[in-house]
Every structure is written in structure tokens, then in C-alpha cells.
């Protein structure tokens, strides 16, 4: 049985696509057969972050509309042979996706032996976001420690508990909090919401905390998901999140401000 996971947030620009790419790569690196689908029709970007933008021939909409087979549209990752990308259409409008069409694609992927299907949701709470979450078993809610992101995420949590297939069947989508752009120094100074603050307001448990890092931009520049940058704290934090998604118990890392030495304290920096 395939596990369908939506990566969502409500607010744009918080790191959904970055997180989708890294989680997909992390799961694939652990040997899972993974498909990651870009639901942002008209504003495709997952292909760039995954580094496969020049190999998109057919897309998700082509498959939903019956213009291409799933096999033709799935782009095999160049690093992991058990990882596939389904790109969003760049030219069609978002009404090109239908609930039945999406359901069929997900079912075909499951029948094809995919163990994890990640749905990279567009921002907002319109059709694309709704379709990305509708069939989900689990949801990774990407949140920046900042007021508008937290509020929008609560809105998304409301939709997850009412407008999904699970909710309609009286079940629950398993919700996880993924805090991104976390800056422990600023949290320590009382300038930024802490992990506990966000958990308390939203009432969900943290899957991972990704520290703010220059490596994220480096990674997207190169089209190489940050989780593959072994030295990177953000990459390691994503790998921890993947491990927790698979049921491992790992302590949070990179969530404490680094202690400065005497001279550091004296002169700042």
C-alpha cells in the first residue's frame, strides 16, 4: 500500500517545494520507491529544485487528461533509480486537474509499487491545494516561525480535518509540523517564535526543524536537493525528519544557539 503524503502550508514561500524535494530524496536514499508530484499547475517549480527541468516532456495534466501515459510522464531521477518526479503543467490552468483524474493517477502509482507518493501542494486554499490534500494519509505542514505563516497553517489544519477523504470517512489525516527557516539565535533573544510556541498554537507535533541556512539557496541554485548536501545542517535536519517519518526516534538537532566564546560575546558577530 502506498502512503500518500501532502506537503502543504497555506502561505507561499515557506519552503514546501524545497521540503518536498528533500523528503522525497531522503526516502529514496533509504531505498523506498518514491514519486513526488507537483500540484502547482501553471507555476511549476519542483522540476527546478529536483534538477530535472530539461527532461520534462509530459506532465501531470497530460496524464490526468489522458494525453500521455503515466509511464511517459514520470521522470526518473538522475541520482536515485527508485525516485520519480511528475511535473506540473506550465501552460494549463488549474481547472485542468479533476478529483477523479488525480485519484486515478494516485491509484495507478500505488498499483505500480510506489511506497510513498508525495504531493507538493500549491500555496493558497484553492482547487490545486484542495486536490493535493484530498487523498492524503499524512500531511506535512510547512511553517515558518512567523505570524502569517502560523495563522495560515491553522487554516490548512482546519481543511485537513474536514475536506479530505479521510475526514469524510470519519478518520484523521496524520498531521506533522515541519518548521523551516528556524533561527535558534533569534529564538533565544526572544525575537522569533520557538518550536514550543508554534506547537502550542497549532496543537500538532513537530516532525522536524530546519535551521535557516545559506545551503538551501545553494542547493536550489544547483538543482540538487539540500538533503544531499551532507555537511549542511539543513540537509541533516531534513534527514532527521525523514527518519522520524519512518518511525525512528531522533532528538532534535540545530535548535540551540551556538555558545559564543568570551571574545565572541565581547565583540559580537
Amino acid at each position: 500500500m502506498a502512503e500518500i503524503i501532502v506537503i502543504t502550508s497555506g502561505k507561499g514561500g515557506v519552503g514546501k517545494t524545497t521540503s518536498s524535494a528533500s523528503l522525497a530524496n531522503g526516502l529514496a536514499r533509504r531505498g523506498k520507491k518514491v514519486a513526488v508530484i507537483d500540484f502547482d499547475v501553471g507555476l511549476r517549480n519542483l522540476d527546478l529544485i529536483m534538477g530535472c527541468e530539461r527532461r520534462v516532456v509530459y506532465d501531470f495534466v497530460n496524464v490526468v487528461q489522458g494525453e500521455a501515459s503515466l509511464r511517459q510522464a514520470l521522470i526518473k531521477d538522475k541520482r536515485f533509480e527508485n525516485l520519480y518526479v511528475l511535473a506540473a503543467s506550465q501552460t494549463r490552468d488549474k481547472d485542468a486537474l479533476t478529483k477523479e483524474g488525480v485519484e486515478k493517477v494516485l491509484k495507478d502509482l500505488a498499483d505500480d509499487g510506489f511506497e510513498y507518493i508525495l504531493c507538493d501542494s500549491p500555496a493558497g486554499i484553492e482547487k490545486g491545494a484542495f486536490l493535493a490534500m484530498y487523498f492524503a494519509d499524512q500531511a506535512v505542514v510547512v511553517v515558518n516561525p512567523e505570524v502569517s505563516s502560523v495563522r495560515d497553517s491553522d487554516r490548512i489544519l482546519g481543511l485537513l480535518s474536514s475536506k479530505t477523504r479521510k475526514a469524510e470517512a470519519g478518520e484523521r489525516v496524520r498531521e506533522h509540523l515541519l518548521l523551516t527557516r528556524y533561527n535558534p539565535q533569534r529564538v533565544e533573544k526572544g525575537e522569533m517564535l520557538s518550536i514550543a510556541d508554534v506547537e502550542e498554537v497549532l496543537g500538532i507535533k513537530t516532525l522536524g526543524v530546519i535551521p535557516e541556512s545559506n545551503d538551501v539557496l545553494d542547493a536550489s541554485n544547483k538543482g540538487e536537493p539540500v538533503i544531499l548536501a551532507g555537511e549542511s545542517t539543513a540537509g541533516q535536519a531534513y534527514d532527521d525528519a525523514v527518519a522520524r517519518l519512518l518511525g525512528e526516534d531522533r532528538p532534535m538537532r540545530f535548535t540551540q544557539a551556538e555558545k559564543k566564546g568570551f571574545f565572541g560575546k565581547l565583540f559580537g558577530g
Partner: protein
Amino acid sequence: MGLFDFLKTKKNTASIAKERLRIIVAQERTSRGAPDYLPLLQRELLEVIRKYVSVDVDAVKVDLVKDGEHDVLDISVALPDGRPATA
């Protein structure tokens, strides 16, 4: 953090953010799932009541309350002290 930072008084803005979020999120959760017509109903009720009694804008409260299996429309009107207005 430098030598003279202690001279600057800085507000703990994270705690302000948390408090604001706690309030707005709680408020939005209670109105979640409520029918769209509630605000309009509230406004029209207020207009009708104001024909007879002079009340404040926030005197009329319309809430959807769950009572077991049923949804109950809970309307409360706070009348001003003293005599009702004569119309």
C-alpha cells in the same frame, strides 16, 4: 551581542506574536465550519432590533453551537440598561 547591548532595551516580540496568534487562531477556529450567512444574519438582525431598541453594534451575537447531534443557532441580544426605547 556586543559589549554595550545591555544598554538597548529590546521588547520580546516573540511573546507578543504568540499572544496575538493564540487569540486570532482561537477566534478563527470557533467560526470554522459555520455557515457563510452568519455575519449577514447578524447584521440584519441588528438592523431590525435597532428599529425598536437602541443597542450597540456588538449587542447582537450569533453563534452556531453543537448540541450532541444537533446544530443550534444561538442568538443573544444584550439590551441596554434602563427603559427600552420608544418607537
